[in-house]
């Protein structure tokens, strides 16, 4: 639980069916359950105009639940990186009125939103729901490298190795939280690393 938060920290909601004919869902992990939960509230025929992109875990959990929704298209890329070229094209060619729904881990929501922003989609028009891990995507302010799936506080930068304080300050443009050297003033001070974003 994050007790006190700051304004740049994203706030996620609960997916709800939006008016429109074209719906694009992007989800990973437990995000599939956000879609199936929403399906109960959707009007008949809603998924006839929907594409669901789901990045499954290695066991393929939740795939059959999504198949049961009978979306117009179900795409199962193995990773977000492998999805990105296709997603960029979809967003570039999208008609006005395409509705975007993002659900799952914070890293997935952030990176899909980043691609949408680059395609000119207004971030406030995007439905989001956070499910699953609180792991953070972090940019090292010093070397600019991104470290994925950060669960500890502090956390080591996977590029330059500095020990970083993972801040709540978040950039949609970078789809990342900011990491700042935690012991810059005295490197001999090594605070204990604790599980903070399970």
């Amino acid at each position: 639980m994050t007790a006190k938060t700051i304004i740049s920290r994203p706030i996620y909601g609960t997916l709800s069916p939006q008016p429109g004919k074209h719906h694009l869902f992007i989800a990973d992990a437990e995000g599939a359950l956000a879609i199936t939960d929403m399906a109960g509230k959707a009007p008949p025929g809603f998924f006839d105009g929907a594409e669901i992109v789901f990045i499954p875990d290695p066991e393929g959990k939740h795939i059959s639940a999504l198949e049961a929704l009978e979306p117009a298209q179900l795409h199962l890329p193995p990773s977000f990186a492998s999805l990105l070229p296709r997603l960029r094209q979809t967003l570039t060619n999208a008609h006005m009125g395409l509705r975007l729904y993002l659900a799952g881990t914070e890293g997935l929501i952030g990176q899909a939103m980043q691609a949408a922003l680059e395609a000119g989609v207004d971030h406030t028009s995007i439905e989001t729901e956070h499910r699953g891990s609180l792991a953070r995507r972090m940019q090292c302010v010093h070397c600019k490298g991104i470290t994925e799936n950060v669960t500890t506080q502090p956390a080591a930068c996977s590029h330059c190795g500095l020990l970083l304080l993972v801040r709540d300050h978040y950039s949609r443009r970078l789809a990342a939280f900011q990491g700042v050297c935690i012991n810059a003033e005295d490197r001999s001070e090594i605070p204990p690393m604790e599980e903070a974003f399970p």
Partner: protein
Amino acid sequence: MGITFRKETFRDDFTFKNSPEHIRRFPFPFNEDAYMYAVNIEPHVVGPKGSVLENLIDVDEHYVAEMQDRALVLAEDPLRCQSLPHMTLAGWDLLELLMEQQALGYPEHFTLERNGDRWRWINRPLGIDDTFTFGDVSTLPYGPMEYITRQSQGDFCILDQRDGNLWMDAGMVTTQADWSLDFDIGMNFFEWHAPVPLAHEKGIFTRALKFLTNIQQGKPARRLNWTMTVNPRLDTSPENYHKWGPDRATVTPENVGDKVHLRVELQSFWRLPRSNGIVFPIRCYLIKMDELVTQPKWARRLHRVIRDLPEELATYKGLTRYRPTLVEWLSKLDDDGPTSPGFGPD
């Protein structure tokens, strides 16, 4: 008579210092013996001769050395200067503003000649004499914002105004007090101020945004902000925090006067005519404690301000590690006497 530009450094051997005249013109930011946030915005109008407000864009004895330091920062890290694609017009607005103001205030150092769109800019301190076509990026060695802000003291943020908010969409930021343009670019007014403690709860940013979005062309505004820096280092960026952070552990009772600097930002806000953006110059002034305490009123007042500063603010400003040493040193210069109202020295 022109300005005598000092040869000095803001890194390595840190030879920066202020001449006696520059000490007296320092924009001391405290008009009473305590400090708390306030929306301390006022019209940016010309002030007394000999003050930093004598001209609306101030050029001082540190100009040449500051521009050399900026060039070093940019060579190491080009991401300190960024402009999102829709901000080029605002860059031209800024170029016009800074050329006009510098030529107006300091005709012996800067000259702007205009012949329609054909402009000639002469910057004598930096040995520049360029002729270019206003609005044509291909006629300048850099984009318009980068070109002119490599020749102007202070950081510059250009804010786009839309949806009732201000968006940090371009900037030249090499002398910042620990915030990252590269991280914050593209954020709105509330987002980029998100890490500032206490001020959100006090409604400071809501009121400030309302004021700023209503700024009119030809009616700039200003405010002062402050922090402290160990060693006269302009580049106290988060990018390099792991390099300058250790300085904060080097303050001793013997070296406080030389090492610890009050860092004041004169922030001004200007509506830009073509783009309708706002430019936000953040001009940084440094003064070491030994220089500051030559004015007894400032010594007394700074002692009281630093001693009584709320812990959250002290932490945010990065003073925690050396505050006790600084307060002890300043206390010896505070005779508990009264201080006169206002900012200036007695």
